[in-house]
């Protein structure tokens, strides 16, 4: 059995069911992200694990012990909130020591642990400050230290980076991951930011309308999305229409070109299906191993810095593709006729 084991978890508010048959096992020391748009139920699941919401049904076990009936203050779960939630009347050191004091630790032990935590988050000089004297990023680091100080069994992070500006967000998420790895603490991280989830997670749970659509490593989630929602929510995607020619062998017609997907399709011959394609898998011109060649015309060029996103009109459809910026090769002008090549292996067939 997994260290944190969630089984058949459901939550309804009145007639509205916000979490449906949620199952997940998290191993000790694993970092799992719940990713989804607002209202998908990810925060509700987290709050049920924390004990702030009562499940309508289902079980939550930590190390084999069912905690569903325990009040939040007896679960030994550390939590970091989006709004920091530091106690404004306590100094940084007192905030970090709060949980230890509640647990009845001695003064010396609290002092030692607080110093250790301050060092962990790199704020040794800030112990006697009050929260309002710190920046947002510093406050959130203190909140992290406060959650970790009593050595919780599980760490829950509820969109901890959402209130911070972009640069701090990236550096703090790396710091969170470093600390989490160092302590080996089992962690759930809730976010609506796919880049955040992809960059720091061992595994990602993509949630949609109260259901876990897909559970997998960032690599799996990105490259082999299980549902149309996952494919569309995670990363940028081209959707192109294709007509099924032979379902069993997966032969489809893409514009003028016949493509063999080499996997059976559920749609029947003559039906129209959607194929998905990541912008970085399409190549301008002919690429090695890219056997499907489509011809079109440059429709738009967006210079994003290190990456150039080019939109090519092919037949009646537009396909986006990403190329790296090369200083000695300016991007083609709008209207230029070009060839776009793709590999049939990169074409994703999405369930409707």
């Amino acid at each position, binding site marked *: 059995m997994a260290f944190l084991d969630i089984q058949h978890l459901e939550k309804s508010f009145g007639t509205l069911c916000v979490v449906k048959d949620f199952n997940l096992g998290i191993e000790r020391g694993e970092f799992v992200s719940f990713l989804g748009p607002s209202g998908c139920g990810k925060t509700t699941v987290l709050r049920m694990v924390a004990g702030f919401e009562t499940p309508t049904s289902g079980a939550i076990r930590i190390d084999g012990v069912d905690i569903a009936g325990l*009040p939040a*203050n007896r679960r030994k779960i550390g939590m970091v909130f989006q*709004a*920091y*939630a530091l106690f*404004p009347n306590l100094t940084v050191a007192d905030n970090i020591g709060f*949980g230890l004091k509640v647990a009845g630790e001695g003064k010396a032990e609290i002092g030692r642990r607080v110093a250790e935590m301050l060092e962990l988050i790199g704020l040794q000089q800030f112990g006697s400050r009050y929260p*309002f004297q710190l920046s947002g990023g510093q406050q959130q680091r203190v909140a992290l230290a406060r*959650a970790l100080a009593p050595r919780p069994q599980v760490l829950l992070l509820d969109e901890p980076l959402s209130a911070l500006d972009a640069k701090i967000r990236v550096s703090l998420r790396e710091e969170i991951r470093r600390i989490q790895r160092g302590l080996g603490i089992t962690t759930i991280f809730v976010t609506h930011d796919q880049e955040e989830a992809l960059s720091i997670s061992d595994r990602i749970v993509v949630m949609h309308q109260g259901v876990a659509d897909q559970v997998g490593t960032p690599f799996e989630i990105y490259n082999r999305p299980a549902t149309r929602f996952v494919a569309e929510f995670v990363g940028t995607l081209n959707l192109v229409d294709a007509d099924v020619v032979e379902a069993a062998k997966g032969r489809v017609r893409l514009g003028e070109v016949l493509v063999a997907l080499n996997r059976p399709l559920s749609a029947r011959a003559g039906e129209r299906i959607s194929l998905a394609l990541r912008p970085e898998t399409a190549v301008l011109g002919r690429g090695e191993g890219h056997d499907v060649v489509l011809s079109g015309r440059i429709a738009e060029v967006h210079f994003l810095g290190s990456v150039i996103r080019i939109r090519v009109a092919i037949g009646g459809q537009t396909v986006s593709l990403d190329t790296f910026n090369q200083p000695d090769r300016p991007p083609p002008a709008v209207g230029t006729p070009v060839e776009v090549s793709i590999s049939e292996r990169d074409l994703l067939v999405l369930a409707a």
Partner: protein
Amino acid sequence: MTGKRFWSLLAVTLGGLYFLLPLAGMVDFSMRMKRGEYSFEAYRIVLADPQFQQTFLYSVVLALLTIVLGILLVVPAAYFVRLRLPGLRPVVEFITLLPLVIPPIVIAFGYIRIYNTSSFLPLTGTRSGTNLLLLFGYATLALPYMYRSVDTGLRTIDIASLTEAAQSLGAGWVRLFAVVILPNVFVSVLSGAFLTFAIVIGEYVFAALLNVNAFGPYMVWMGSNRAYEPSALAVVAFAITWACIGLIQLFTRFSKFSTARR
């Protein structure tokens, strides 16, 4: 000097005179007890009067008890209304405003009717029962001020997140209130407390109708029997009220973690 400036100065001066002249007159009068010279004779007599000391002490103790009762009643109530029952807020606000709408004399009569010696709960029959009744009455009178200031204080902090943070760190309700909620609304509680103090110190109707020797009835008795001392007493009462207001300001300014002004 521009015309605009002249008129604003005039308005402020007139307003100031309207409030300050009677006070100045009262202070002046209170110091004329000895013929032909200014003295604090009236104050000396008042402060040395054992009646004054006794009634004032009684009212101070009662005011402090009222504050404690008010805090115990209002802080958890306002907290839970904000956190769990936000739909009830208009109702609770209306209820806490009632003491301002219903005259104290009506409340006092109600108490006497309900808790008289032939009732099921004869509180007016004993000294301690009457004191208790007075305490409850004053807590009611203080409700609008106490609730409003505490509620305003709660609005400035994110009580939902702070509550959950404290709970996830293992804190129970008592610690949550004592260490997290109360200290963060301390300034608001204090301003409610000082207003309560000022109300209770000068209250007359409840005390007189329940026949209690509090500071309010003493002031009235003094006013109808002496000439110079009542003015001195009024100045003392004013000073107490102003000291309360000053203390509110002081605590608001010097609370070291308050983020309200930063």
